Structures are given as C-alpha cells and as structure tokens.
C-alpha cells in the first residue's frame, strides 16, 4: 500500500502559477467573477500566494516570498476529526478525500484546517460560454459518492484531492494492459505541469522513491509543523 506524498522545492519554484491553472482545468474548479474574487470567494485548490511578512521587513527585502500550497494531506488531519458526517475522510493510501454528495456544508472543516486549503461553494458554480463545454469529464462517483472533478453543487466544501481520479484511471489502465500498477503511473496534474520541475510525487513508504530521498534533505521542512498535523506535503527551503 503506497503512502502518497509530495515534495515541493521552493528553490526551483518560480511562482508562475502553472500548477494552479493545471489544477483548475483538471478538477473543474469554478471560475468566479472579479467582484466575488475580491470578496475572497475564489476557489484555488492549489494556491500560489505571497507569505505574510511584517511591515518594515517586507519593504526592506523588497522581495515577496511565494508559497505554492496544495492540501497537505495530513497524516493527522484536523479537518477529518471535526466532520459530523464523514464527508471528508482518509483513504487507505493516506489521501484525504472529500465527498460532495455527503457534505452538509457546516464549514467546520474549513475552520479546523490550519492551512486554509478548503473552499466552500458560496453559490452554484458556473463557467463562461465555451468553457462550459470543455470540462473534464472524469468523475469519481458511486452511490452516495461524488468526488474529484465532478461538478460540485452549491453549499458544499471542496479541496485538493491529489487528483484522485488520475489514481483510479492509472489503476484501470494498468489492469486493461494486463500489468502491475506502478507508482510512476500516477501523477497529479500540478506535478506533471510544473514549469520549473519543482514538484515531486510518489510513495513515501518506499525508501528509494524521490520523495523519500528528498524528504531527508537538510532543506526539508513541513508547513506549520507546530500544528501537529504531520503533513505529507514536504517543502524544501529556499537557498
């Protein structure tokens, strides 16, 4: 059983936001109008944003530090603990998933997640003309299940799933080709697209995988380690 994990090298990251865009098209995240975006209602499963730095220091360095941030897929996720209906859960391979069909929209998980990676659908998602006919048709759906790029109804929470549908597809393809599933078959869209090749993805339990080796680097750190969430997204320090 793999334990999926991601490493992001901040030294290589150029903050081009390619990952955000790739994620958006892969996962059908709705587009919001500029007015709603100004109100803080935009949905970016993988957000690239400048880190908060205190007044003087920010001006002195004249250089904002950027962070690209998917869901951390915490080993000990606060979001799952608080959900009253089990709409968000960790699967066998450590991916923290989100079931739109069950979520009641209480927004407890959005409050509990220290990383702010969860987004609420404040209204019915919509796309501009032309875009709405080019949505990703992939779905992870079943009785009482609706996950992945499936179109979200209004009033539910959504978040990065490590492109869970790609995982399912990779397994199905391997099966169809009559071979074993290899870990390299599965890559999330942001990792695939990253211009600077700053993102790595793989099995954390495999000591020879890139993510395992990189996580041993002296530059490795986890975001908000003090929150006790044990993130499975590991960053490598700049410089």
């Amino acid at each position, binding site marked *: 059983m793999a334990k999926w994990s991601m490493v992001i090298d901040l030294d290589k990251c150029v903050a081009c936001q390619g990952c955000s865009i790739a994620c958006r098209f892969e996962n059908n995240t709705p587009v919001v109008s500029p007015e709603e975006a100004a109100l803080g*209602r935009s949905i970016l499963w993988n957000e690239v944003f400048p880190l908060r730095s205190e007044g003087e220091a920010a001006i002195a360095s004249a250089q904002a530090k950027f*962070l690209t941030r998917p869901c951390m897929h915490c080993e000990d996720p606060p979001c799952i603990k*608080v959900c009253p209906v089990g709409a968000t859960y960790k699967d066998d391979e450590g991916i923290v998933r989100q079931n739109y069909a069950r979520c*009641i929209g209480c*927004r407890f998980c959005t409050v509990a997640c*220290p990383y702010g990676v969860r987004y*609420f659908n404040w209204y019915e998602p919509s796309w501009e003309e032309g875009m709405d006919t080019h949505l990703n048709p992939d779905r992870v759906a079943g009785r009482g299940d609706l996950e992945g790029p499936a179109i979200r109804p*209004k009033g539910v929470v959504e978040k990065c799933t490590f492109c869970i549908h790609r995982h399912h597809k990779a397994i199905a393809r391997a099966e169809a080709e009559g071979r074993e599933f290899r870990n390299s078959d599965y890559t999330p869209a942001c990792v695939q697209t990253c211009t600077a090749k700053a993102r790595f993805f793989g099995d954390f339990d495999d000591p020879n995988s890139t993510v395992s080796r990189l996580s041993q680097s002296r530059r490795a750190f986890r975001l*908000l380690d003090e929150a006790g969430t044990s993130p499975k997204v590991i960053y490598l320090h700049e410089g």
Partner: protein
Amino acid sequence: MLKADQKDKDKLIKPLFETGRTYWVTIAILLAIIGWALYMYYRQLTLGMKVTGMQRPVYWGVYMVNFIFFIGISHAGTLISAILRVTGAEWRRPITRVAEAITAFALIVGSLQIIIDMGRPDRLLSVILNGRLQSPILWDVLSVTAYFLGSITYLYLPVIPDAALLRDNLPPYSPAWRKRLYSIMALGWRGNRTQWIRLEKAIAVMAVLIIPIAVSVHTIISWILATTVQPGWHSTIFGPYFVVGAIFSGIGALFIAMTIVRWKLKLEEYITEKQYNNLGLIFITMSAVWMYFTYAEHMIITAGQEVYEFPVLTSKLWGDYAVSFWVMVALMVVSFWIMVIPRLISKTAKRFLVFQPRFTTGAVLLAVVTGYYLVTDSTIPGLSGINPETLFFLVRGSLLVELLFVGLGVAKWFKTRLVAATTVAGVMVVIGMWLERWNIIIPTMTHPYLVSWAEYHPTITEVALTAGSVALFIFMFLVFFKLFPIISIWEVAEGRVIDAERAKVTIPMPEASGIKERLRGKGIRKARG
C-alpha cells in the same frame, strides 16, 4: 373542581382571555419582521451563501454568533430555576415560568441558527444517518437535543396543575377550543394527594437532571471552537468561560422579561423587589466570574509569545475589533457598577456633596468637555505650556475622575430604584454578551495562520435573519403567555401556604429581665440609652 384565589383570577387568568390592541399590533410587527427574514432566507437558499458577508477565511459569521448567543440565553431558565428549586429558594416561585419559557424558546431559535448557517440544510438528516460521534457537532446535537427535551418537559410539568386550574376556572366568554386545550394539557389533574406527590417527585428529578445537561450544552458549544487549533480558540478555559457567560446573559434576559411582564400586567404584587434583589446577587457573582475569566483568557495570550495568537489579541485591543471589544468591556463594567455600588452606599448619602445632583451634573459637563478635547486632540486654553506627556496623563486622568463622580451620582439615583437598575444592567449584559461572542469568533476567523488576513462585514441578509430570530423569540414568548399564565399559579399559592405556616412560628424573645437583674447587681438603676 379546583378553585383559584380571587387575586390570581384577576391578575393572572383574566389577561389570558382579554387581549388589547397593543398585543395585536406587537404581534403584527413581529410577524412582519419574521416575514422579511423568511424572504431573505429564501433568497439565501436559492442564490447560495454568497448573499452573506462570509468568505474565505471567515467561514463563520453572525449566524454562529447568534447560535452561541441564543443557546447562552437559554441557560436563563432551566438552569437557574432548577438550581433554585434544588436549593429550596422560596423566592423563585413567581419567576420560574418566565425563566423556563425563555429557555425553551431560546433553544429553538438557537438551533435554527445552525440550519440557517448550513450550506446544505436539505442534508440535515445526514447528521443522524451518517453521524460520526467523534465530531464536536454530534456532541452538540446530542446535548442540545437532550437539553431541549428536558427543558420542554420541565416547562410542561409545572403547567399541569395550572392547566387544570384554568380548565375549571374559565371565564364564561372563553372559546370552546381553549377548554379542550386545557383539559388535554391537564392530563386529568384532580389535585389529589397521589398526583401531587408524583408531580413533585417528577419535578425534583428533572431539576437535578437538567443541571448537568445545561452545563454540558454550553461547554460543548465552546468545544466546537476549542477543539480546533485556530489562533485564540485552543483554550481549556473556554468550557467554564462559556457556561458562566451563558448563565450571565440568561439572567440578563430574564431581568428584561420580568420587568416587561411586571409592568405590562401590573404584577408588582407577585414579582417583588425581592426577586430582583436575590437574582441580582447571583447576577453580580456571575459578572465577577465572567470578568475574571475574560481577564485570564486575554492575559495569558499576552504572555504567550504565540506569533499567531498575538495579532488576534491586538486586533481586539486596538485594531479592527477595538470598538466591539471595548464597548463590551464598558457595558460589563457599567452594569457591574450599577448593580454593586448602589448596594454599598448608605441611604443618607445625600449629605455628601459628591452624591448631590448638581455635583453630578457638573461632573457630566466637565467630562463632556474633557472628552471633546481628547477626541478632537485640540489644545486646551491656558495649558499650552505644559509638556505634552504630562498633559496626556492629565487629560485622561481627569476624565477618569470625572467619570467616577458621574458614576457615584448615578449610583445614588439607582439606590432607590432597584428594578430600574437591574433592568438596565440586564439590557447592557445581553448586548455585551452578544458582542463577546462576536469578539471571540470574528477576530480569530479574520486572522488565520496562512491565508491573508481578511475583513468581515455582515450583509443585510444576516441582519434580517438576526432580526427575524429575535422577533421569532419574542413572538413565541407572547403566544405562549397568551395561553398559559405567566406566573405559576399553584407554586405561588403553595408559597403563600408555606409563608402562613411560617408566620405562626413564634421566635422566643431574649430574656430582658435577666439583664435588669444583673445591672441592679452592679448598682445601676436603669439601663441608659
């Protein structure tokens, strides 16, 4: 056939069957507000939560504040009247019904806030079908449900003898459905010995049971916040802090309800100063404990060196939320003052200059002038030579002294007006406690860990739904007390019997003769003075 006292008949039963114009006008206004709120809620349902001021990261706003506030108010009744019953406080009799009604209705309105706040209210049942017991929301559902069922029972049990009384004492012009209603509600109550014993037993059991449930309710609500790691929420003090705040605001609401009822139905003979005084003492205690908790909570954050918690604190002390924070503090301090200081000064305080109206008026004028200089920051004629730092303390210090004098004058005025003082304090605390919930939720939500700091401004939808909730609360209150007597008739009657019995007991006089003898033995003829 049960008989009611003539006084109770006139004062408590008659108003149930005679409805004035004001009543209908009030009902109409309330219904209009509720209608407006319903329309706004319908809009929220169809358009989505975007009609609120919430966004990322402020995922919880006014609805959550209202939720905690109303559930807090609900601690007025059952908890207080249960404690008073268990401890055998006789003076509770005339106010238990009002208190218990506040509980039941505040709970209904409070739970409604959660449904209003949900993105998918249509999936409400999922909480039961797919409920995860590990989630604090489930704990909350369980304890609030238990509290609601308990307090409804607790409200209903003492209504039984009164319903029977009403059934037997209906005025001739009352409509037939009311007789049927009371007959059903009375459950065949005849007032015989077995029935009384059973009823008293049931009430006694409920009174004991309801206390831990009530404590659990607000503790768990605080845990909804405290079980997250958000800056400023992860605190063990939250449980007791919320419970104390809840009882505190509950008594405040009870004071307001008591005064309105007493004034509208002219119940001065029933709800006397004694109720105000005794409940006031509990209120003062709660106020002191609340202030202690508030201080402790903020004090520890000040010393905690927590980089993420500190911005939350500063936003309250002098940032975006300074106004709501300091208004809350001021309301609490002033309400404490007008409850405590009038009790401390003597009746003859008028002899002293500081308590005389002209002195107070002078202090008010001076305070206004000083306040003006402080706010506008203009130079004070004649004082331009003073070093600005001295002036800074001089102006603030003199304002403080002036306000102190105003306070003393006001306290003197309230000295002889217990009901007014208590009611004003009640209003202040109810507003103050709403602000307290706001000050706990919003500053933390706007200052999260990673997401950039945000602002939150409630929209008209949220205002409408808040107004509608308050209106619904008052509406239920009015309707209920059109059907049932506002004062538990049988409990008051029982109190009268107990009082009469007590009056028969004679307390032996101290032996005066012995003293005389002893004095004579010492050669003194007559005791002086």
